[in-house]
């Protein structure tokens, strides 16, 4: 079974365009460290067009996190900004890219959304 992190990046690469990144351009590399092993994901973003690879190349922004935390981010069980403030996720370089990318993570899986008083689907 493919993990949520891989699925997240593969989905993003397949979509090729993410409207929430339409004002962003630059390269963003995720370094997911586990012991001596580091998995890299490199995003090339050009005004919303996104290309994903696993190259370990220089990037405008480098984000460090554990694979377990990242797995939780891509499934909405953890929150990116809180993780940044806590120091569990680190950023080197331009922080704007990661703040923009964070917005495409899903919300918590158990979120109910607005509590409407009438019949009518919100989502």
């Amino acid at each position, binding site marked *: 079974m493919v993990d949520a992190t891989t699925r997240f990046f593969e989905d993003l690469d397949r979509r090729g365009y993410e409207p929430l990144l*339409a004002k962003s351009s630059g390269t963003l590399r995720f370094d997911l460290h586990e012991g001596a092993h580091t998995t890299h994901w490199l995003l090339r973003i050009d005004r919303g067009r996104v290309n994903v690879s696993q190259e370990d190349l220089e990037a405008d922004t480098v984000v460090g996190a554990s694979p377990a935390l990242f797995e939780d981010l891509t499934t909405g069980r953890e929150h990116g900004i809180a993780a940044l403030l806590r120091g569990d996720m680190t950023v080197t370089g331009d922080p704007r890219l990661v703040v923009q990318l964070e917005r495409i993570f899903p919300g918590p899986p158990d979120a*109910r959304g607005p509590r409407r008083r009438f019949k*009518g689907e919100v989502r």
Partner: protein
Amino acid sequence: MARSSNVRILDGNNFVVSEDTGDIEATPSEPTGLFSLDTRFLSTWVLTVNGERLNALSYDDLQYYEARFFLVPGMATHYIDAKLSIIRERTVGGSFRETISILNHDEKPVDLEVRMEAGSDFADLFQVKDEILNKKGEIYSEVESDRLRLGYRRGNFKRETIISSSAPARYDGQGFAYTIHLEPNEHWDTQVTVQTLALGPGGRDLRMGLRAHGTERLALQHDLEEWVRTAPKVNSEGDRLAATYRRSLIDLAALRFSPLSLGGAALPAAGLPWFMTMFGRDSILTCLQTLPFTPELSKTTLRILAALQGTRFDDFRDEDPGRILHEMRYGETAAFEEQPHSPYYGSVDATPLFVVLLDEYERWTGDVALVKELERESRAALKWADDYADLVGNGYIWYERRNSDTGLENQCWKDSWDSISYRDGTLPPFPRATCEVQGYAYDAKMRAARLARECWDDPEYADQLEREAAELKKRFNRDWWVEDGEYYALALDPDGRQCATLSSNIGHLLWSGIVDHERAEKIAHHLVGPRLFSGWGVRTLAEGEVRYNPIGYHNGTIWPFENSFIAWGLRRYGFADEAATIASGILDAATYFDGRLPEAFGGYPRELTKFPVEYPTACSPQAWSTGTPLLLLRTMLGLEPHEGHLAVEPRLPVGMGRIEVLDIPGRWGKVDAFARGRLDLNH
């Protein structure tokens, strides 16, 4: 809370609140300290000479970022025959710097033991008013040969205060000391630097490279001079209004704040000391007030709020797709999700107001590029108002928090728990809808229609928005009108029952344009009538209502910011006299506070107290109070962008004399406006 003798200096998110000696001894009732990123980095900072505390002869807060204290040994109760002078000069920028100078006036040499007690509790701003008994992490101090390091660690969360000195000092775990010998007339000084660090693993600071301007004293001074130089000039007869304007302009510079995520651009933070952060509502309303004078603030505010617009459902943060944030915090409680401010989205007015600001900004500046840039976010905001905010399904914006633990109950500007009530004083169930928010929604649709037609090339969307706005206006005037009082209800409950209390909120409705023309005069009369108008301004709740209390936070006090929007609304409907009445009341009040309007003051009748009574825990300077004189100026001068030029239609009260505003920037380049007081308000 803070005593009036407290001295505050600040630069954006960094600020120092101290006693008038410069000392800091924080307690829950005296929340003094050095703060940065919503964290207290110094809670003890006490200077002694030969073991004695010092006594303040005087202090100057020279600029918003610097202060100077003149001190002598001995406490105030002693007879003072000072043979020593001690001067503390401090600046807050990226770090906190203090120069301590000691002068010996005696004919004999002296030997002195100079000591600074230093410590930090690393309290989160949300905790400073509580006894902190059980910090979850570990507080430590490390003494090095040339510095003292105070720190707090909780998992990967690490905050450090690093203290060093230009003159060699002896450091210990509780401070640092100097032994000095001074000959007659000799003088000694040292510069102490306090750095605040927010460290992640690997030792990188969270704020690396993120400054709107330089943080050295000279850079701060240059930046302030530039800020004042590029803003319009205001001259007034008697100089009172001009002085208030200058005070506001400087406070606005001080309140500029660079969020971590915007690469150094600045927007107005809400206010000192509790709200030195980004607030959707406060930042937008402040921008609306200051647009004619400092339009750049609006551009950055719109961009940052757009960049952090909600994208998903998150019940803890009350986040929905399209929703504009309420509040962002950087402290420990936000980091560990003990508070939801990372960011928190629990407000229902920021989202329509975002669209209102975008349109108003374009009308002044002609910056079509930004309107195009933010088209997607504007549409998402409008969709949020129609879909996710309509919890009852009857075409209004409602609120009910999903975070029932730490979320806000009332998600309108009057956000205290008891601000919304029925006439009998009881509180309605949730969801609730307040009137002013429906006005904002109407205005947002009308303004977005113009943007859709003129900038987004979507006339169909424009037609749709205008149709929806017209329906909303009709519906609103049917459902919210209180027949027996002839005003609009404060709120509706989910069954459509009115909270038929008379409140200041009706003034916002004029500004938004949702009031039927034949009803506007009634509203204007209420606003300057004896139940709402105190002589200084419009009370949040009318005298005679069950919950009315002249010092009730949202139930009777007068909020300068709100009055500036009410005055703007009155002028919009042609009530220039009433607008001028409110404007001159608030501007008169400002002179009692040296031109710096507080967050709120008491609703007591003007003839009773003769001076405005400051609300006990009012925040100052506060951004939207700071913006108030600017919007009142705009209102009295009748400044209005009109077909590419600036229309000026002054209606000033007689006592105001002559006013000139020079170099008003906009799509017209720069123009001047002149006015003379001609309105007799006593007729």
